[in-house]
């Protein structure tokens, strides 16, 4: 039970970050909820495999990225644009601006979703989470140069998709 309590503390500390990684990749609350929980379960079961070569957070990130990417591959990467009932949009007072914001949000989401999964993962971690390339390389299990190259390719594609906005 001591192990469970200690793990519970880790969950409380990282639940939001892990949830949002899954959410940004899937754009779906139900999937994000399910996948983040799955990631924590997998982490709990394989905690003895954590070799402290990276930080715990990096290791956890790696688990959620792998689970989410595998999930998206199985789903055939269907794009889901839903505003679930139990979530609330951040406060913007002007209704027109809200609509504009939603429209823009959808365009950005569509553009990100059109990226290949590996590029999407790098965009999520580098541009949205703000992680350094070295850490992203550890999470994704690739070289730093690979991360830079994927980001370069992703940015080129996004430039094409969002040119009308820019």
């Amino acid at each position, binding site marked *: 039970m001591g192990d469970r309590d200690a793990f519970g503390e880790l969950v409380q500390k990282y639940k939001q970050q892990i949830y949002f990684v899954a959410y940004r990749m899937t754009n779906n609350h139900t999937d994000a909820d399910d996948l983040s929980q799955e990631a924590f379960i997998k982490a709990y079961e394989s905690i003895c495999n954590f070799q402290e070569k990276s930080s715990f957070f990096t290791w956890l990130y790696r688990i959620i990225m792998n689970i989410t990417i595998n999930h998206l591959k199985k789903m055939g990467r269907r794009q889901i644009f839903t505003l679930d009932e139990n979530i609330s949009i*951040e406060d913007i007072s002007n209704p027109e601006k809200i609509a504009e914001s939603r429209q823009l949000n959808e365009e950005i989401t569509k553009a990100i979703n059109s990226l290949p999964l590996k590029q999407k993962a790098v965009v999520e971690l580098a541009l949205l989470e703000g992680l350094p390339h070295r850490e992203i390389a550890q999470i994704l299990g690739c070289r730093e140069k690979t991360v*830079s190259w994927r980001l370069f390719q992703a940015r080129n594609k996004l430039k094409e998709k*969002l040119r009308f906005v820019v």
Partner: protein
Amino acid sequence: MECEKVNRFLSGYLDNSLKVTYRNAIKEHLAKCHKCMDELNTMTKIDNLLKLKVREKPSKEYWENYWQKLESRLDRTATLRLSGVQSSFNRFISKFAFALNGILIALLIFLSGLLHIRTQQMEWLQYVHEKTIEQISTYLLYPATRATTNVKTNALRDCKAISRTLVSLGIAKQSQGLNPGNFSERNSTGTEIHGFHGAQFLDKYDMLTYNYHSKFWSEISSDVASEEFKNGVKNAKKEG
């Protein structure tokens, strides 16, 4: 630096992930080239756009219940895993039992074959033990002499034939407590072949495990199986 090359490194420049030399070279180029500078500005705007993407948050209640929900799931997973392990174990046992049956049957067939050979060997040993050297030599030398009469030009076959005889006689002598080395024969060319040839074979030869000279034994077995030998045995038994 050319614009094409600079463009490839703009992404790294924006992330500050380039080596100092490259970074300085690109900075120098950007100061002079509006086209590349525009490209960098576009990239920066897109980065900022992505960061604008609204982060839709679940309710406070959702976060408060998160751990409780996860804990229930952990308990359910543990239970499922246990029953899964048990059924995997049962499936493994069935497959293992099936494979084991197959192995046992194959082993049984193999052992029967060995037993048959062993029985033949034992019969031969029993026979050797019961008869005199003279009786055995008469009937064993028969195939050997048959071979030697035709082999002035084939000394190898000659020696092999004699050796086979010697081994058989060596076994016979041993069974009677005699030294198998004290025995010799002359082949058709007059060369004396001593019992030690047979003794050498006996030293290395393991009757029970059918090992070193398995080929040799199979030759003796074929002698034993031959009509001449069988007739010889019958006659020896009649005389005995």
